[in-house]
């Protein structure tokens, strides 16, 4: 669980000189949503990736179908940094409405590709401009009318590729991936890209220092979004039942289930489905169905975001108390109520941890990479069935919907753990059955599944107080006995859940604690802090209740910064509850404006605190 660090190098300042800056840039493509630019942006980012250059892609999009500004940001970094950057070196301006504003964010010496119908404002004479004759190129090619907008967007792919040095063959490869090898679609798009590239070659001369050159740092990596990885993880975890209700940013998780399950899980002989996915009438029904299926013995899940979690509260409490295994993915988004539905956040931590009235305490997994989305996708079922409790997996919009590089997924390393289930044969052998009896002393009891053909198999599942034999009871003793055992079960859970990832440096007195999608920003920030002679150790939380190591880490450091994307420092509060004697040394650093964390923000926040 411990990794070693390589020495950091800094290239950012080199931008100011005219010497070539190779494979080190942040690009923003400013478009209007609904204009069909997604394919173009994917072609650029995937071709960079195929040229061996580490990349990440983040789509800053509005909650809207058509007509509002959208920015697709691509970061290329030969050093492998993939966090969001708030500096922009390359702008592809395709939206006249935001042109001025977009230019304002460009660094001095930066590059602006723009549709030649736009007027360049006076105030930025410190950047390089490349006009793109989008309309003329479209007119010349005369694509089918219904594809005109899509093809028009390919013009900037061609010009940008030519001027930066992106290889045409890799763009073709990227399009082959995108169009699933549909040759005619690839050819049509490539015609425009090549026409635009030829135009650029004849008419533009290179005046900026930014270059893309083939390297070899993405061998064996994937470029993929977290929701797809989560869905694949669930499929390789044997998901039987999934119910969901459409909601940004979680819908694409269920979409991916619907896309891959028919390919991977049809019965070979009959062609029938070995799974079922139901689009429910609301999130309440979605989790209700998942609870019903989990109770009946299927590997069962639902996926949603904050507003859906609100609706799921009552069922979450029932499943916790009646001890029913289900997996709930919460792809977090920004704010209370509708908030900013297309922006990212980590603000459901406390709500989910205690989701349900009374003394409910939910088990949470916190994937911090795409590979972990896949891994927790299957592992969550093992944990849910082993612990007989809901497992909440908290992803977020950034991790779920944006494009990340990932290690290849590791095929599940262990067979299914179906937990403590008694069959008819077991009941014959044992001769009795008490659903909530702690036979093994770990707080986890044995269950039978509906349909078990044995007179002793039945029990009554209920949200009311109950005895060991699941019989209704209002007795204070029965309540204590049962609830103490549930708490004991949660203690057992600590040792079963994914352990924290710890990365140490020599003699660090400062500890950093973070979780989820902030990982790339924290890693990059640590490298930068190192350059300022600030050594840090880093613990990334991957589950709640916390592993014992978390408390140890806090005790071992003079000061521990807890970095997260919410307003109140929600994980910071949970940690203070966990180690109250250490509460004073836990410093909360929070960032919550809908944008993913940047390394610069982390560095500045820590320096400000250390300096003061």
């Amino acid at each position: 669980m411990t990794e070693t660090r390589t020495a950091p190098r800094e290239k950012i300042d080199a931008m100011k000189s005219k010497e070539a800056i190779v494979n080190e840039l942040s690009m923003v493509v400013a478009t209007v949503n609904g204009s069909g630019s997604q394919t173009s942006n994917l072609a650029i980012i995937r071709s960079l990736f195929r040229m061996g250059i580490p990349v990440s892609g983040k789509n800053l999009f509005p909650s809207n179908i058509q007509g509002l500004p959208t920015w697709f940001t691509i970061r290329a970094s030969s050093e492998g940094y993939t966090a969001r950057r708030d500096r922009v070196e390359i702008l592809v301006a395709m939206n006249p409405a935001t042109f001025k504003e977009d230019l304002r964010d460009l660094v001095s010496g930066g590059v602006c590709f723009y549709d030649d119908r736009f007027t360049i404002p006076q105030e930025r004479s410190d950047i390089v401009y490349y006009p793109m004759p989008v309309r003329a190129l479209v007119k010349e090619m005369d694509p089918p009318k219904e594809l005109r907008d899509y093809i028009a967007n390919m013009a900037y792919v061609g010009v940008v590729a030519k001027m930066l040095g992106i290889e045409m063959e890799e763009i073709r490869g990227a399009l082959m991936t995108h169009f699933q090898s549909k040759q005619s679609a690839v050819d049509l798009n490539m015609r425009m890209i090549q026409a635009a590239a030829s135009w650029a070659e004849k008419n533009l001369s290179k005046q900026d220092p930014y270059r893309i050159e083939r390297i070899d740092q993405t061998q064996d990596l994937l470029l993929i979004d977290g929701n797809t990885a989560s869905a694949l993880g669930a499929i390789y975890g044997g998901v039987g039942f999934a119910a969901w209700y459409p909601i940004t940013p979680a819908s694409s998780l269920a979409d991916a289930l619907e896309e891959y399950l028919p390919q991977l899980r049809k019965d070979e002989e009959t062609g029938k489905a070995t799974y079922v996915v139901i689009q429910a009438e609301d999130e309440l029904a979605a989790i209700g169905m998942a609870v019903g299926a989990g109770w009946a013995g299927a590997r069962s899940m639902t996926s949603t975001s904050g507003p859906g979690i609100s609706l799921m509260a009552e069922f979450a409490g029932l499943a916790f108390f009646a001890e029913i295994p289900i997996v709930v993915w919460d792809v977090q988004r920004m704010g209370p109520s509708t908030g900013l539905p297309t922006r990212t956040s980590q603000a459901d931590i406390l709500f989910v941890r205690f989701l349900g009235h009374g003394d409910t305490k939910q088990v949470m997994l916190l994937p911090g990479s795409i590979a972990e989305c896949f891994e927790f996708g299957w592992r969550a079922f093992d944990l849910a069935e082993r612990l007989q409790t809901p497992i909440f997996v908290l992803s977020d919009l950034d991790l779920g919907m944006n494009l990340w590089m990932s290690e290849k997924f590791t095929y599940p390393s262990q067979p299914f753990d179906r937990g403590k289930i008694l069959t008819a044969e077991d009941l014959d052998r044992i001769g009795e059955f008490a659903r909530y009896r702690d036979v093994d002393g770990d707080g986890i009891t044995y269950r039978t599944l509906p349909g078990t053909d044995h007179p002793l198999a039945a029990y009554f599942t209920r949200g009311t107080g109950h005895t060991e034999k699941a019989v209704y009871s209002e007795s204070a003793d029965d309540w204590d006995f049962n609830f103490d055992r549930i708490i004991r079960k949660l203690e057992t859970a600590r040792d079963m859940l994914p352990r924290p990832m710890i990365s140490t440096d020599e003699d660090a007195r400062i500890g950093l604690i973070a979780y989820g999608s902030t990982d790339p920003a924290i890693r990059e920030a640590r490298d930068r802090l190192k350059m300022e002679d600030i050594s840090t150790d880093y613990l990334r939380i991957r589950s709640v209740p916390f592993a014992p190591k978390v408390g140890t880490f806090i005790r071992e450091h003079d000061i521990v910064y807890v970095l997260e994307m919410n307003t109140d420092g929600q994980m910071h509060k949970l940690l203070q509850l966990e180690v109250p004697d250490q509460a004073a040394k836990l410093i909360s650093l929070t960032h919550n404006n809908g944008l993913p964390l940047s390394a610069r923000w982390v560095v500045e926040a820590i320096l400000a605190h250390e300096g003061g």
Partner: protein
Amino acid sequence: MTASISEKDVSNKNVNKVGLEKADYKGLPTTLCQGCGHNSISSQIIAACYEMSIKPERIVKLSGIGCSSKSPTYFLNRSQGFNSLHGRMPSIATGAVLANRSVKAIGVSGDGDTASIGIGQFIHMLRRNVPMVYIIENNGVYGLTKGQFSATADKGQVLKKIGVNPFMPVDVCMEALIANCGFVARSFAGDPKQVKELLKAALSFKGTAVVDIISPCVTFNNRGESTKSYTWGKAHEYPLHDVTWVPKRDEIQVDYKPGEVTEVDMHDGSTLVFKKLEQDYNPRDRMAALQMLEETCCGGVLVTGLIFINEEQAPLPDIEEMVETPLVHLTEEVLRPSKESLEQVMEAFR
């Protein structure tokens, strides 16, 4: 042990086709009020399942919250039960029967649980044709919270504590018909013979079978003028037909005159025999059923019987094209795709 409704029948020592006595179908002693209509319905569930020789282990009994929803404790001790959330039992049922399509689901709900808090899930369960028997123990009143009107209470009805109900009732059978339910029945807890036959028919149905049973609340809503009372029901019950469920293999014994009976063949091989009473009623005509309910809704009668049947509609597991084997019986070899397939999937993200 205290006397319970289910124990009254223990004297019957005959075993059924799966070798069980009626006592094997009983539940725990009821804690509902003495004389509650729900207890009578529990007895008929026991009788129906016993007489149909359904193994109790094959049944799941599900409920929401309320007096009605407590009742699954009082029948079929050998069936798995789930007393879930108020108004949300249909979602539990949907998940459970999809996870294990070999179990038979009996859901017990009430008028508050179905027509108020649960109306949304009720409609969507019907829209999906979830295979289950959905019983509404309908008494027009909230019992556990001590006597508030429910959404099925009559307009203008007076309750001592609350006053006058100013709202039109929700007719759950009409809602079911509009939602395209393929089995809509209404009965009266004071007519146990009909309740039992309709339950048997419902248990033979392959989609959602709604059985709305007027089930008087002896504590809060049993005054003679209430259409949910015993007195009123007994005086005003108007059966559409005399319905009998005939199991597979049994020859239909009774000789009827031509035109006097109609038969409906059920999916499981059993037959429903409808004997004509005063008027012709065709339970296959959906629009006629709606019209009948509209005309009789405030007409001073309690129409009972099988209001509508359409056994052609595919149930949810068939709509979803699921394998015949229950999902819960599939092995890891089936449920976890191969390592090679994962490699292939990942190729697309290069």
